[in-house]
C-alpha cells in the first residue's frame, strides 16, 4: 500500500490534485494531462491518488491504471531524490552506454531489477533517445545533460552528489 511520506505537505498536495481536476473540468478525455500534473506534485502516481482521480473522472480505476502503466513517463513507485537517466538509444548504445549503466548501478548497489536505491536517494533509468546523439554517450542527472560520458566520469558525477548529500546532513 503506497502512502504519502511527505506528511506536512500532504494536505497541500491533495488540494492541489483537486485543483488540477477542477482546472481540467473533471473531463475524462483530459486524463493524461491530469496524470502529468499530478505526477509533478507527487513525483510519482500513488495508488490512492489514481483511484481518487478515476472516481472524480467517472472512469474505472483499471482504465486509469492501464493508461498510467502504458506510458514510461508515469511512475507508480516513488522515485529517488535524484534521477539518473542514461541514454541507450542507438548512438549511445554503440558508444558503450551499457558499461556506464553497469558502473553506476554497481556504485549505487542496485541489484536485479531494482531502479531506486534503498535510501531513496537515486533512481537510475534508461531512455531510448534524448536527441543529443552528437554527445553520445549521454547521461542526464536531474535534468542536466552530461555528454561523452565514460563509466569513470559518470560514477564521479554520482559520487559528487553523494558527497554533497552527506555534507548537507553533517
Amino acid at each position, binding site marked *: 500500500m503506497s502512502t504519502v511520506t511527505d506528511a506536512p505537505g*500532504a494536505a497541500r498536495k491533495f488540494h492541489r490534485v483537486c485543483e488540477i481536476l477542477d482546472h481540467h473540468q473533471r473531463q475524462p478525455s483530459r486524463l493524461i494531462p491530469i496524470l502529468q500534473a499530478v505526477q509533478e506534485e507527487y513525483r510519482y502516481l500513488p495508488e490512492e491518488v489514481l483511484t481518487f482521480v478515476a*472516481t472524480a473522472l467517472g472512469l474505472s480505476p483499471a482504465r486509469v491504471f492501464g493508461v498510467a502503466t502504458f506510458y514510461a513517463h508515469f511512475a507508480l513507485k516513488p522515485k529517488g531524490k535524484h534521477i539518473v537517466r542514461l541514454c541507450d538509444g542507438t548512438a549511445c548504445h554503440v558508444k558503450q552506454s551499457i558499461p556506464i549503466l553497469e558502473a553506476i548501478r554497481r556504485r549505487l548497489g542496485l541489484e536485479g531489477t531494482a531502479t531506486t536505491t534503498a535510501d531513496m536517494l537515486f533512481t537510475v533509468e534508461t531512455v531510448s533517445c534524448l536527441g543529443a546523439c552528437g554527445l553520445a554517450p549521454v547521461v542526464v542527472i536531474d535534468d542536466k545533460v552530461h555528454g561523452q560520458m565514460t563509466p569513470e566520469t559518470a560514477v564521479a558525477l554520482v559520487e559528487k552528489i553523494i558527497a554533497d548529500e552527506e555534507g548537507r546532513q553533517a
Partner: protein
Amino acid sequence: MTTRSLTVDGREAPINGERNLLEVIRKANIDLPTFCYHSELSVYGACRLCLVQVEGRGIVASCSTPPEPGMVVYTQTEEVREIRRIAVELLLANHESSCPTCSKSATCQLQNLARRLGVEKVRFKPTHRPQPLDRTTPSLVRDPNKCILCGDCVRMCHEVQGVGAIDFAYRGAAVSVQPAFGKDLNKVECVYCGQCAAVCPTGALTPRSDIADVWKALDDKDTVVVAQIAPAVRVALGEMFGLAPGEVTTGQMVAAMKGMGFDQVYDTSFAADMTVVEEATEFLRRVGSGGKMPQFTSCCPAWVKFAEQYFPDLLGHLSSCRSPQQMLGSVAKETLPLRLNVERRNLCVVSIMPCTAKKFEATRPEFVHDGIRDVDFVLTTQELGRMIEESGLRFRDLPPESLDLPMGFKSGAGVIFGNSGGVTEAVLRYACEKVSGTKLTAPDFHAVRGHKGLREATVTVGDRTLRLAIVHGLKNARLVAEQVRAGRCEYDLVEVMACPGGCIGGAGQPVSGNIDARRLRTQGLYEADKALQLHTSQDNHLVAECYAKHLGEIGGEKAHRLLHTHYHGRRRIDGDGLRVTGDATGAKLRVSVCVGTSCYVRGSQTLLHRLVQEIERRGLREQVDVRATFCFERCDRGPTVTVGDTVIERCTVEAAIEAMERKLAQPTG
C-alpha cells in the same frame, strides 16, 4: 452485377447494411476465424485472423473494413492462410498449453482454430513468465497464463456491463489484462456476472468449479442433498449433449441427478412463484402508499452488487425480495429438516444455476445463519453437464423423471423468470388479477417481450397505466438508474438482468457456437410456460400451502424474515485512503473523510479542506492522521467521516472537530 454487392471468392455477395466486410463474408457462409470479433462489442481488430485480400488494397482485416460495392475479396489465398497460421502459432508459443486439464478444453477457440487452420508445430520458444492464478472470488478464476490479449473480456465488462473491472495494463511484451493495480478480482468492482468468461476464447477466465464439494456431499451418507434447478438451465443443458438450444430437458436432468445421488430435486421456479407474489405485493404497496418509485427487481445478484457499488442512494428502490435461489434455500432449510427427518446441519442445498454471480450470492452474509448457508453450493449449467459426463450417464437416453413435490411444482410464470422480460410479465400476471379481481383471459403480455437491451412498455392495470422498463446489460441499467437519480424517471417498475437476454445468456450456460442460442433458449422457456397448466403464480396451490403451513401471510412478518433481505452500500475498490495530514507513526487519532462519489456530491471535499484548516489552526497536525478514503458504505447518509472508531454520518466540520477533541482528551493506554 448490381451496385449493392461485392465478390467473395468469385461469387457475388449482397450488401444489406452490414457494418463490415466480415459480416458480409459470414453471411455468404464462410466462417472466417476470429478471436476478437463479437457483433455486440466494438470492433477491435487485434487478432488478425479475419484477414482477407481485397483487389487493389492488399490484405486487410475484414472486421474493420466497411463493405463497398464492387469490391473483389479473396478469403483463402496462400498468403492469407499463412498469416493466419502464423498468428495462431505465435499465440500458442506463449500460451500455457495445459489443454487436457483445462476446463475450457472442449470449447477452447484457440485449440479449435489451431486444429482448423492446420497448425501442427509451434516453432517459437515461449517468452512469458508464469503468473499466479487469481482464485479469490467465489465465481471466477483468472489464469493470466492462458490470455491471448484479444480484449473481448475488457470490452464486454466496459461496453455491455459498464463496470470496467479489468483492463489492459502495461505495454508491449509486458501487456496483460488485469484488475486495477494488479489487485485480485475480489478487491475491485467486479460484479461476478462472468460475461468476461462467457466471451473469453480460451481458459484465461473461467467460472469457478464447485464440483468437488458437491461430490463430497453426495458421497457423505449422513448428508441429505437436495437440489434446485433454475429455469434457464432446462433450455440449455441439452446443448452439452448435442441437443439444440431451447430444447427442454427437465425430465432427463432430474433422472441424471437422481442417478448421481441427489435425494430430492426441486425447481427454482417454485421459489420464483413465491418471488412473484412477494414482489408484486411489495409493488402494489408502493403504488398504493406512494413509496419509492420505480421499483427495481432484485433477482439478479450481479445487478444487486452493481447497485450497491454505484447507486447506494437508490437501494431503497430495489425490491427487498430475495432472489428465487435464496428464497428456495431459506424455505428448504426452514421446512425440510422436519419433512425429510434430517438435522439442519446435515441438509445440503445445491443450486443448479446459469449464473456465476449466484455463487457469490450464496456466500453473502445475509444468507448465512449460524455458520450454515441457505444455499450450500451453486453449480453452473456447465458444471452439472460435466458431472453428468463424469458419471457416464447417457443423458439423451435417460427416461425422464419428475421433480419432487412440493418445491418442484411451478406455474409458467415461474419458468419465464429465466429470460429478459419474464419477471415483469410474471408480476403483471399477478398484479392484473389482484387489482381487477377477475381472472386473466390471456396471460401473455407480448408488450414486455423482446430482445433489445432496453425496452419500454405501458400496461393498464385496473384504472392505472403502468410504465415499465425491461433492461439487460448493466450499462443499460446504469442509464435508467441515472435517470432515477436525476429525478427524470417516469417508470413504475424496472426489471434488470445483468446478462444479455437475461439468465438464459448467463455465464454459467454451455458455451454455444450457435449465434441464435439466446433467442432459441428464450423461445424454449415461453414454450415451456405454454405447456404447463398454470400460468400465474397465485394459482400455484403448493406455494399457497407453503404460506399457510410455514410462512404466514404474504408480505407478513415471517415471510419477511425468510424471503426478504436488505442491501448496503459497498466500496468499489480496496485501499487505505490518501493521507492528507499527520504522520501515521506519531498520530494518536485517525480521521477519515469519504471522498467517494456520493459523499463528494454532498460536499465532502470542502468539508475535508475546512477540516484540515481547522486542524492546522488548532495546532493538531502532529496528533491527527487525516485521510481521504473512498467508501464507508453509508453513501446515502454522507458525507461520512470516521474519527477513531466513531462513524459520523451527515458530518459537518463542527461535528468532526468536536468528536476529535473528545477523543484526544481521552487518556490513551
